[in-house]
């Protein structure tokens, strides 16, 4: 039960900084794929998200209304995650243009964690429209990993965080995390 106040507090703090804008963020970073040991590159526009919603309505995931509701409000999802075999295989500056675009387009910094170890940094951005979260951006760099999440559309951060423990995501067992969310479901 601590999750909602946690994110609500952060959102409230970031809201005055947010400016409603509709500019599309270009994540790029495709040059990192060649150097990475593993990479995930997902890009779904609104038409693909409609297909995803249709799939979820028909499949076994239909018993999780939260997931369908979460996807139904989205306009665009871009996720890029690169895992490298060794440190120093990418330049952290490669990610800077994403941060710059988010800031330039009025996205507010919800959370910034920097310099905990070996150049690790995590920035969580949100776009706010009429007091509602209308976008989420995550830029995380670690010595051997780069992750960028860019989600456009009405999104409930608490519901998104609650997905942990579903669909094979291991639950982190965080304080306040709903025990129901610890169940796992395999993705078909």
């Amino acid at each position: 039960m601590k999750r909602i106040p946690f994110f609500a507090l952060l959102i409230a703090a970031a809201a005055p900084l947010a400016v409603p804008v509709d500019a599309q963020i270009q994540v790029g970073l495709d040059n990192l794929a060649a150097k990475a040991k593993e990479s995930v590159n997902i890009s779904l526009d609104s038409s693909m998200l409609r297909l995803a919603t249709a799939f979820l309505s028909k499949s076994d995931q239909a018993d999780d209304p939260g997931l369908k509701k979460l996807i139904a409000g989205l306009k665009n999802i871009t996720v890029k995650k690169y895992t490298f075999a060794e440190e120093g295989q990418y330049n952290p500056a490669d990610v800077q243009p994403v941060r710059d675009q988010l800031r330039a387009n009025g996205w507010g910094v919800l959370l910034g964690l920097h310099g905990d170890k070996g150049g690790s940094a995590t920035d969580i951005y949100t776009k706010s429209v009429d007091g509602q979260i209308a976008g989420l951006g995550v830029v995380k760099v670690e010595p051997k990993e780069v992750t960028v999440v860019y989600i456009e559309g009405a999104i409930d951060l608490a519901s998104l965080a609650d997905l942990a423990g579903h669909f094979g995501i291991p639950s982190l067992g965080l304080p306040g995390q709903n025990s129901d969310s610890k169940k796992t479901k395999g993705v078909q």
Partner: protein
Amino acid sequence: MSKNLEDQIRDALRPQDPPEGFAERVVLKSQAALRAETPRPRFRILWPAATVAATAALALSISIEYHSLQEQWAGRQAIQALQIASEELNTARNKVLNQ
């Protein structure tokens, strides 16, 4: 009398040219008769229609299958993307709470 009869027979048996267009009329009549007698091959009409119907059914089936695969692919991609996003949110939250 016998000479008159002989002349009549000779006249009757004398080769004569057919009237103009006789050969063409004969050919046309024989062709018409042949067409009337030969049963119309139904498959000549049915085959193109059957081919069009089969092609349309195949195209529809492929289209439905492709759409279904697209839905499946999009659904799995969306789940994976949200998994990663959820994971990152929880990791960040965990770090904050542990600080």
